[in-house]
């Protein structure tokens, strides 16, 4: 059974097998519910989300967030430290300035880094500087992981959850993965077989570059992919790969991940 809903600003597709249809339908409903919950908690656009409340108030006083939000922030901190600051969710200021995110009610925000995020006890969070966070680089992966956990809790053992290209497979089935590459409209490049793991892909145009970033050549057509045990890791690590262009950096292996870059030029040659 395969279903799709518009969530997280993209199309989320869930494919499941191995149980009777009503059980699969219930499992899919619950999994979409988990994704919708992540969406509600971590949307920058929704004024009532944890992220919005943090951005408005956490620089003045500790803000209590949902356990899921606290968990994502905890992982974001680990990735920020491991990547020497290249994975940085404190990009709200940059995204608002370029008009990619709304700045309503956030006039106090300045440029800064995730180092300002203090994770206190009991899911309380405080910012030591007037930053704004955007979890767009990690929440989608987390949502996919929560969907997989929910499906498993409903007895599903074979599943694929695909949130607009960030996906995680569960079960014995090996799934052929193709990479969509900028500059290759309407075509995709076969990359590998995925089983019981996750993959995510980013492009340079969609990533906010932080300090020390080695920028890709202008107009280059590359897709940056990471295979990892969880979709949160895959999603987040693509943002690091875009900036370093270095698929062999030590932190990928440390997180149990594989990084690779797909180039439209190579693919064009193959087409010819």
């Amino acid at each position, binding site marked *: 059974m*395969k*279903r*799709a*809903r*518009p*969530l997280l*600003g*993209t*199309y989320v*597709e869930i*494919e499941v097998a191995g149980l009777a249809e009503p059980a699969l*339908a219930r499992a899919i409903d619950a999994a979409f519910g988990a994704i919708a919950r992540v969406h509600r908690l971590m949307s920058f656009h929704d004024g009532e989300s944890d992220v919005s409340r943090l951005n408005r108030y956490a620089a003045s006083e500790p803000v209590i967030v949902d356990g899921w939000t606290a968990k994502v922030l905890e992982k974001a901190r680990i990735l920020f430290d491991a990547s020497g600051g290249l994975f940085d969710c404190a990009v709200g200021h940059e995204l608002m300035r370029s008009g990619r995110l709304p700045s309503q009610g956030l006039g106090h925000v300045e440029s800064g880094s995730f180092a300002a995020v203090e994770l206190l006890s009991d899911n309380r969070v405080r910012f030591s500087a007037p930053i704004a966070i955007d979890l767009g680089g990690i929440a*989608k992966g987390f949502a996919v992981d929560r969907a997989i956990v929910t499906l498993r809790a409903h007895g599903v053992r074979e599943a*694929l959850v*695909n*949130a*607009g*290209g*960030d*996906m995680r497979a569960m079960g014995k089935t*090996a*799934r*052929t*993965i*193709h*990479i*969509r*590459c*900028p500059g290759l*409209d*309407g*075509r*995709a*490049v*076969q*990359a*590998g*077989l*995925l*089983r*019981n*793991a996750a993959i*995510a*892909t*980013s*492009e340079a*145009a*969609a990533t906010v570059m932080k300090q020390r970033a080695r920028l890709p050549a202008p107009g280059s057509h590359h*897709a940056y*992919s990471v*295979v*990892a*045990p969880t979709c949160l890791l895959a999603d987040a690590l693509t943002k690091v790969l875009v900036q370093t262009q270095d698929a062999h950096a030590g932190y990928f292996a440390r997180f*149990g*991940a*594989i990084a690779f870059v*797909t180039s439209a030029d190579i*693919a064009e040659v*193959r*087409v010819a």
Partner: protein
Amino acid sequence: MKASQWIWLPAAVISTAAHATTYFSVEQVQRAIFPGASFSATSLPNAWRASNGGYVIVDRVVGKHEYITLAVGIHSNGTVKQIEIMDYKESYGYEVREAPWRAQFVGKSASSPLQLNGDITNISGATLSSRHVTDGVKRILQVYETSLKGKR
């Protein structure tokens, strides 16, 4: 990462024009949104009234490179119950003009170990925006407000 979790394959290029998926027929989506209800026609050809007072409205939205049919379930009180995508098809202008598609799999290597002619669904890439779907849902809700709300 275990070796079984990722196995490299030859970098063959495929056309995503074949990337089309159907999730629901109209009858299936009616049953999925309002299980156990029966449905009757309305003044609109793409809207149905459920026996519990709710509505299911189906519409098609066109994105930059995708065509999507979606169904919106609306409670009897006018709030949205559920949004389901019924089908999804990617299309690119030059390929539309060149029907039938030049080839489903451009540059597939002869040594490729896989049968690639199934439906291609597992595409990882920069996120496709679902803004068009969001706009489509708003349009559907306007149709509901003006043409269906409060009518029997």
